[in-house]
């Protein structure tokens, strides 16, 4: 018992030394990184495309509807949680919730092969979830992916009456 207590105490001591060293070295940096902070978008997925460069990959609802009218093969993906998708969603959309813990794998990306266009939407501010999911897909080689601009507004029309 004494042996285990001693090991636990020593482990805490080592952790304290390491944390102090980390704090000291981080303080010495010209631009210290925050200890607890929302992670920048660019780093959340393997996609290294900066946020600014993604502006050309947006598509408006009107433009999407035009494309759908031409019988183009389009996959419409709902990046919101599955429960919200069940409540209401855009016509012909399928649920593919974005999750940092359960990213889309190669198998998921393979299911999107053969589509001329993949459009991702969500209802979060600045289409954040859809952008992240698009980033995951892009890193898996799905190049024809676009984010539906202002997904929240597009979804408003489909929301069930309160």
């Amino acid at each position: 018992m004494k042996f285990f207590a001693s090991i636990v105490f020593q482990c805490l001591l080592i952790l304290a030394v390491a944390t102090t060293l980390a704090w000291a070295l981080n303080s010495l940096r010209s631009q210290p990184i925050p200890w607890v902070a929302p992670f920048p978008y660019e780093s959340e997925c393997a996609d290294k495309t900066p946020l600014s460069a993604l502006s050309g990959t947006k598509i408006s609802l009107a433009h999407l509807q035009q494309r759908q009218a031409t019988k183009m093969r389009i996959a419409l993906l709902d990046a919101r949680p599955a429960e919200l998708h069940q409540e209401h969603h855009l016509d012909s959309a399928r649920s593919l919730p974005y999750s940092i813990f359960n990213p889309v794998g190669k198998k998921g990306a393979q299911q999107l092969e053969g589509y001329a266009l993949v459009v991702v939407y969500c209802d979060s501010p600045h289409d954040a979830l859809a952008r992240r999911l698009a980033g995951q897909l892009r890193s898996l080689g799905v190049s024809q992916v676009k984010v539906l601009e202002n997904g929240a507004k597009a979804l408003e029309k489909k929301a069930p009456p309160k």
Partner: protein
Amino acid sequence: MKEGPFWKKLLGPYAAWAFRVALGAIFIVASIDKIADPLSFAKSIANYHLVPESLINLMALVMANLEFVCGIFLILGILPRASLVWVNGLLIIFIIAIISALSRQLDIGCGCFDAGSQAQAMTRWTLYWDLIWLAMGVHSFIFDSEILSVQRWLRRRSSQH
């Protein structure tokens, strides 16, 4: 320590010392790039998709320095058993993360020695190496008798006075 045949010593305390020093060197080498560029290491951790986003920076900062401190302590023989607990614990975490990433077919760098863009791609060999190091760490924890350690030297010195 009981005197026994030489081969027993070779498989026991001497091997434990060699494994302890080797693990210390490996952890120091692995930590240097991570300490120098914590943001790249944070990105490597983020790529595994296993840690809550808000804790990624904290983990990157502490883990890199923990690897360095444990590495130094293992080589010098300062709190060797506790350092081995940390090293083995970290290796178990790495093994779980690697298995999780390989099973999800995530095409990411392992972030083991180089956290930047030149990070080695993760393969099954990344997992095998971690398993070998874990075996070395467990052996060292069981058989280490603090050969050539600062702790032993300090104990002897204090008993002489």
